[in-house]
């Protein structure tokens, strides 16, 4: 089949997405990066996955590490390259340093090197070749003109034999020239950069950037690259499409009074933001939502950043809810972490895996502010949008909580980018009135549905959790947090008027 882009899957999770389909087939792609940017891991994964997942055998030409080193190092990814070598699927061309001394007398070329590669390719019927790294050739031989000429030949041979090749190159500095010796100029139309920088949090951050793919499209921004026990993973910026279904079916929040305020609950696959100060009842609200789902036998995922499983079980138990039972029987998947422990990109992955594996229908993120705290604005927005898009397209109804910094008064929720990403916004707040704190709940918006505009007072009781008592009427200035009864205000106004009249001002 003639593929229109002539690309093949690289085999690294996320790569096909940033490259719009894979690596250019039958061509050479240069992968350049500074020391420690992951060139060897990247290129060996290209070969390994090629063999194990695409049935394409490969040749690894190694200049720096010996084949034994590579076999040993990749065992940490759970790979058995030795076996692949025995099965004639993987062949090494060992160009690692040779400690016998060598001198140059007269003219030479790299004919033996090319012959060895050709031999290895033929031996395993390779479709993929890695040369790690071509920069080493320049340090091995005094005549760089010869090296250039031979690399030209090599690139031409590769083109002819229709194998897909990755050549790695050493980059002297981040943000400097693309590669030492300007290798990119003559070996390849396709260049990938691997970056390894110190971020503002003092952590090493690896990213991948496709610089050019001649005649083909690709993402133009850097994507995070993480190395885990299973190898390398790339986390592209989610490119969500607004394509979630528009359900007319409603889902209960688990709180009767709140469902009434929402005219029957929230829409299936909608995203609800619950915003409120610390202690305003957000976690309890989310527990209602989870328990309601669990009782109906709906699988759900609860991501909790503030309380440990035991704390949650205890709190749920205080309302007579046996959360632990549902966690134990697998209806509820509970993830409790400090947000610092896991990168945002990884979270997306975990959530996606869980939702797909468990077919979760309800997801709770308590609280999203914890993620916001760690990431910059752009990254946070990207995360939220990506997560929302994924959840919607999988028909998941989700609830995010947001901790507002003030106990009383108005908090900007618009600045967090959460408000536009949310279909529904529920505000929980405290107000002070007559020397007492009252809990209030209001629905700020519900996309595509009517909702009650009243501010409702609620209580949290041991018997039933959140209980909506009724509208909080005859009170003004609620949003400021310092409420005043309207009647009382009128009385005060009248008194002022009388006083003014008495004083002869009127």
């Amino acid at each position, binding site marked *: 089949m003639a593929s229109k882009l002539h690309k093949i899957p690289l085999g690294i999770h996320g790569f096909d997405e940033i490259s719009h389909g894979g690596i250019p087939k039958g061509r050479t792609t240069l992968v350049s990066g500074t020391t420690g940017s992951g060139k060897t891991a990247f290129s060996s994964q290209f070969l390994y996955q090629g063999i194990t997942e695409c049935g394409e055998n490969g040749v690894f030409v190694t200049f720096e590490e010996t084949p034994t080193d590579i076999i040993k190092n990749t065992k940490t990814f759970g790979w058995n390259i030795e076996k692949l070598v025995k099965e004639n699927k993987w062949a090494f*061309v*060992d*160009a690692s340093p*040779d400690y*016998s*001394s*060598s*001198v*140059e*007398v*007269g*003219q*030479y*070329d*790299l*004919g*033996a*090197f090319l*012959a*060895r590669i*050709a*031999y*290895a390719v033929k031996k395993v019927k390779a479709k993929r070749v890695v040369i790690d790294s071509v920069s080493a050739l320049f340090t*091995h*031989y005094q005549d760089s003109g010869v090296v250039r000429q031979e690399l030209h030949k090599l690139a031409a041979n590769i083109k002819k034999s229709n194998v897909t090749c990755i050549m790695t190159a050493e980059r002297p500095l981040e943000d400097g020239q693309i590669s030492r010796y300007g290798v990119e100029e003559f070996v390849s139309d396709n260049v990938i950069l691997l970056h390894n920088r110190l971020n503002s949090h003092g952590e090493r951050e690896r990213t991948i950037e496709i610089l050019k793919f001649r005649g083909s499209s690709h993402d133009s921004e850097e994507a995070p690259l993480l190395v885990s026990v299973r190898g390398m993973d790339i986390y592209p910026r989610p490119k969500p499409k607004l394509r979630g279904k528009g359900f007319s079916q409603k889902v209960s929040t688990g709180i009767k009074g709140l469902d009434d305020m929402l005219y029957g609950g929230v829409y299936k696959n909608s995203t609800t933001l619950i915003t409120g100060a610390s202690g305003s009842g957000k976690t309890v609200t989310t527990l209602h939502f989870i328990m309601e789902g669990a009782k109906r036998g709906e699988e759900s995922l609860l991501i909790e950043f503030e309380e440990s499983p035991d704390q949650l079980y205890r709190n749920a138990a205080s309302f007579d809810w046996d959360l632990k039972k549902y966690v134990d029987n697998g209806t509820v998947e509970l993830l409790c972490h400090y947000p610092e422990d896991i990168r945002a990109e990884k979270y997306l992955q975990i959530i996606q895996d869980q939702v797909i594996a468990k077919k979760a229908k309800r997801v709770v993120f308590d609280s999203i502010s914890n993620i916001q705290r760690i990431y910059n604005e752009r990254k946070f927005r990207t995360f939220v949008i990506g997560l929302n898009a994924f959840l919607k397209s999988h028909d998941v109804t989700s609830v995010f909580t947001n901790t507002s910094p003030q106990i009383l008064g108005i908090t900007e929720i618009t600045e967090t980018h959460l408000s536009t990403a949310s279909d529904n916004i529920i505000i929980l707040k405290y107000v002070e009135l007559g020397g007492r704190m009252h809990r209030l709940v209001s629905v700020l918006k519900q996309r595509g549905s009517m909702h009650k505009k009243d501010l409702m007072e609620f209580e949290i009781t041991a018997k039933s959790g959140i209980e909506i008592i009724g509208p909080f009427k005859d009170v003004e200035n609620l949003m400021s947090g310092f409420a005043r009864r309207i009647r009382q205000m009128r009385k005060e106004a009248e008194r002022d008027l009388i006083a003014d009249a008495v004083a002869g001002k009127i």
Partner: protein
Amino acid sequence: MAAKYILKLYVTGRTANSIKAIENLKDTLKDGLNDICNLEVIDVLKNPQLAEEDKIMATPALVKVLPPPVRKIIGDLSDKKKVLLGLNLTTN
């Protein structure tokens, strides 16, 4: 002349460099060294696996296998003196 030298010359088919290297080496060895040197010419195009075993990259390449230490000389071997020096061979 007790020591026996084992030499391997790796070439790539009939390229100009290959032919020159063979001629130059024969010329270098003709003055009495032929007797103590056992020379094998290997074409990497025909026997690439031998090049792999000996980790040969550049051609022509002359390898002194014995006596130790192993020495490699790459190039068309156009400079007699350097070749002999590189092989640790001296002519009287």
